[in-house]
């Protein structure tokens, strides 16, 4: 059969060395620039890291598509019904007058915001699509305050890398990196299609992350924590989703 010539051996050897060195350099760069997702370990780690790193390099500032008012879905589809826990029911009975969003962690001034406090910040609207990981989607107008205004108020420390956000529903929490947290379309949403945000769609307060799938847009938000590492939260995989088998990064 074919014998391996010396030249072939040398080129193959050099290519292997170059490949290993390239991978090591890429890994080093990825760590340096925060391109490894919190669930970047395990069998699916290489795929997740490639997706997250590539998308972060290409999409750090890109905007989700916005649509004309005429494309707003006549029949938006809300997956969840109202949370059944007592805390939510008490807020509902009071018309959400006492609903609070507390922001703490790596911030200069930990603050608790009422919905009125949030409404006093610059208010914006966007007509964007919600796509579920199952495959369906709808377009709606979302009204709220961009998260970066809230982060400006509390004074995020420079070493911050992630924002963790939690629902009033127990064990429902997510996190996003600073690129998404500071993104102009990431809204603390309080209104939908010219009205209050219905409970079915996450009212009174939902974080909309329009460059990621619907499951990153957690409903009934009550608290946020700014952090430099996801290791201390849950199982350290970034959010409740990877703990349930779903990817932390849902831009794809």
């Amino acid at each position: 059969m074919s014998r391996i010539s010396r030249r072939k051996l040398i080129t193959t050897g050099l290519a292997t060395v170059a490949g290993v060195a390239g991978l090591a350099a890429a890994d080093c760069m990825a760590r340096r620039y925060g391109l490894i997702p919190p669930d970047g370990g395990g069998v699916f780690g290489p795929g997740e890291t490639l997706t997250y790193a590539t998308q972060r390099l290409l999409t750090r500032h890109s905007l989700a598509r916005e649509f004309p008012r005429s494309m707003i879905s006549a029949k938006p589809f809300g997956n969840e019904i109202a949370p059944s826990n007592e805390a939510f029911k008490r807020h509902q009975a009071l018309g959400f007058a006492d609903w609070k969003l507390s922001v703490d962690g790596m911030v200069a001034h930990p603050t608790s915001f009422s919905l009125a406090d949030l409404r006093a910040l610059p208010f914006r609207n966007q007509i964007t699509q919600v796509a579920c990981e199952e495959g369906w989607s709808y377009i709606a107008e979302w009204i709220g305050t961009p998260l970066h205004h809230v982060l400006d108020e509390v004074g995020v420390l420079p070493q911050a890398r992630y924002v963790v956000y939690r629902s009033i529903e127990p064990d429902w929490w997510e996190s996003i990196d600073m690129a998404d947290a500071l993104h102009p379309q990431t809204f603390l949403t309080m209104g939908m299609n010219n009205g209050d945000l219905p409970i079915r769609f996450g009212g009174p307060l939902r974080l909309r992350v329009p460059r990621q799938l619907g499951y990153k847009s957690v409903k009934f938000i009550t608290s946020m924590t700014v952090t430099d590492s996801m290791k201390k939260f849950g199982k350290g995989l970034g959010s409740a989703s990877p703990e349930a088998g779903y990817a932390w990064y849902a831009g794809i």
Partner: protein
Amino acid sequence: MAASTTTQHIPVPHAATAAAPRHTLLVRVTHWLTVVAFLALLVTGLEIVVSHPRFYWGETGNSGTTPLFRIPIPASRDTVPTGYSYTMPDQNGWSRYLHFEAAWLLVITALVYGLASLLNGHFRKNLLPSPQQRNWLAFRDVLTKFLRRPPPGSADSRTYNAVQRVAYLSVIFILFPLVIFTGLALSDGFDSAFPFIVNSFGGRQSARTLHFIVTNLLVIFLVVHVAMIVLAGFWRRTRPMITGHIKSDLEGK
């Protein structure tokens, strides 16, 4: 004079007399990597479809709107109106993880294969129909030969006929690029950076429907491809794609 005797008897290296491999190492390795990636994508893609086996046209579509068509199977979510009372187990988590990891394997393999094949002339020499194959007669000949079913000669296993060339080129340059870009159009992150891709497919739901249709075309190709290999002799065709060599070449020595 020792020096002159060696120059008179230039020994022909043994390797040069051996037949060139039927398939180069690059073609063999990228072929099997594509098989692995494609099968992983197919299985996981099917699992993802099960969570919402309805397809729409345009930008949006959900359980409250009219589908373009639907697959008559139970769904893995009880929010989808399927007509079945049974809900399948949810496999979306690992399916999505593996789908994208396999997609990376496919894309990297395709880039290596595509670039190398452009540079080394594989596309031009082996896949572009040769000048004598660029007419309908060449295609008709393949068909009549196939229908008369002669014993497959060793001559035609050395090269591809006109129909094979067109089929392989269509899969490489039309179906695979389409399935990759309709898939990327389903990524919210990708769409924010390159909105013209999803818009050119007619919207997110159109891209999803096209992704499904192109997958079906690739499955049809796979079925016909494997059927042809079985008809021509499974090991006769598969061995060269693994070892690189046709059996008769090895026996000749």
